[in-house]
């Protein structure tokens, strides 16, 4: 289920009062205070356990009993997972850093304004107070802004387990809808975002402010090198994962017309049909958005 989307209310099974007023199916709960404790618990409990970050995607699924984990491992009391480490070239953002904290961070707004712009599209303020950057990436919703942004900005994530840590490029992280390459005993601990981008922008079409995008594009531009034209276009809400629109990037870098770039973008996606919009509508939306992004990047299209 996509939280925020339409889902039928499940048949009522409990009663409205007293001890029985519970929505999630029974689970047990663990509250580690260090990363090692959390990783040990994940290794010991295996598939039975599920981490909970901000709960903004997981708790709706628990409430509907679409998820029935045996044990929830709360990442909320692990200091090492929170905060932003700033260097000249990058931002290293702890997985449990709340979306709202990042949105209000003036230094980030100055150095990477597209992050604040993207966060303002993520649900509503009440969701962002609790929702975390790591939770959004680990949840890997194809219509979500932050996974698309991570892909467009060549971000990497650090992943940890009792066996050690590894670094995964955003391009390798998202395997399918709500599916990442993380193993059940691994945690996403950090997101590293390079600051090499001169310009970056995000645009999306949604039915209401804060709803998941029906179609969206993140664009970014940095100086070209010999093997990289320095242009990124990533579509979201138009496939099963965020998709890099490489042909449109190439067309844009080659100075193609708006028509050519839009055609290349539309040819690069396989959009879904659902109750909110059909594939043709999403494709048309993407064409319009790509043209708008090219304009905002200051690259003629």
């Amino acid at each position, binding site marked *: 289920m996509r939280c925020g989307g339409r889902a039928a209310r499940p048949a009522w099974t409990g009663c409205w009062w007293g001890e029985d007023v519970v929505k*999630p199916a029974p689970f047990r709960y663990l509250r580690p205070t260090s990363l090692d404790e959390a990783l040990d618990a994940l290794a010991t409990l295996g598939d039975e356990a599920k981490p909970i970050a901000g709960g903004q995607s997981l708790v709706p699924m628990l409430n509907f009993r679409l998820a029935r984990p045996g044990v929830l491992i709360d990442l909320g009391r692990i200091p090492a997972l929170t905060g932003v480490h700033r260097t000249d070239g990058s931002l290293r953002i702890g997985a449990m850093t709340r979306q709202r904290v990042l949105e209000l961070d003036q230094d980030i707004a100055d150095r990477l304004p597209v992050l604040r712009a993207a966060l303002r599209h993520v649900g509503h303020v009440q969701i962002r107070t609790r929702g975390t950057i790591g939770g959004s990436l680990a949840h890997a919703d194809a219509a979500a802004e932050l996974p698309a942004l991570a892909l467009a900005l060549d971000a990497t994530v650090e992943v940890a387990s009792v066996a050690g840590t590894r670094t995964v490029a955003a391009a390798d992280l998202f395997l399918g809808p709500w599916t990442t390459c993380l193993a059940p005993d691994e945690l996403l601990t950090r997101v590293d975002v390079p600051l090499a981008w001169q310009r970056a922008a995000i645009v999306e079409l949604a039915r*209401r402010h804060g709803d998941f995008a029906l179609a969206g594009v993140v664009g970014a531009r940095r100086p070209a090198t010999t093997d990289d034209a320095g242009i990124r276009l990533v579509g979201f809400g138009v496939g099963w994962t965020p998709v890099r629109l490489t042909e449109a990037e190439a067309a844009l870098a080659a100075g193609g017309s708006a028509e050519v770039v839009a055609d290349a973008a539309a040819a690069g996606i396989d959009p879904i049909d659902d109750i909110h919009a059909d594939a043709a509508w999403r494709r048309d939306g993407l064409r319009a958005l790509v043209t708008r992004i090219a304009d905002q990047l200051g690259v003629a299209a």
Partner: protein
Amino acid sequence: MNDLEPVDALDIELRVNGSAVRRRVPVRRLLSDLLRDDLSLTGTHVGCEHGVCGACTVLLDGQPIRSCLQLAVTADGCEVTTVEGITPADGSLSPLQAAFRDAHGLQCGFCTPGFLMTLVAADPAEHPTDGSIDALLSGNLCRCTGYQNIRTAVRRAWGRDDEGNASAGSDTPLGSGTSSGSGAS
């Protein structure tokens, strides 16, 4: 709690509207249910229980959250404020509540506690325009009013006239200028 032993229930301590609350709660108890059923604070309404309607909005350490998406155990040690906590003890209305009444910002009232809790935590400077007020209100659904009167109530509570003009200060939206969202509110 023994840190490495998963548990079914937990002793938690929090402050609700300024009063200390200690309870042993099943770990699957939602904060919304703790408030309504265990503490009889029924001003917090529950509409959808999946984070969409905003009726259950309360403050957690001063920030607005969905109480239906918060396990009570994860509020352990926190300060919770509900609509009961923003109402003056003498039973009168706070200025924000009075603005809702005066501007007809409510009809059935089911959504009202959620709107009020979103708004008490908001910084008017972050929402200088009507468009940015609408973005703020987008996290709360109202089936009755059509939102116009709620927006009017916000303008009045924030000292703006009924055209939305701030009596002081600028009207420039915050933000980078690199974002353009679409979709009507």
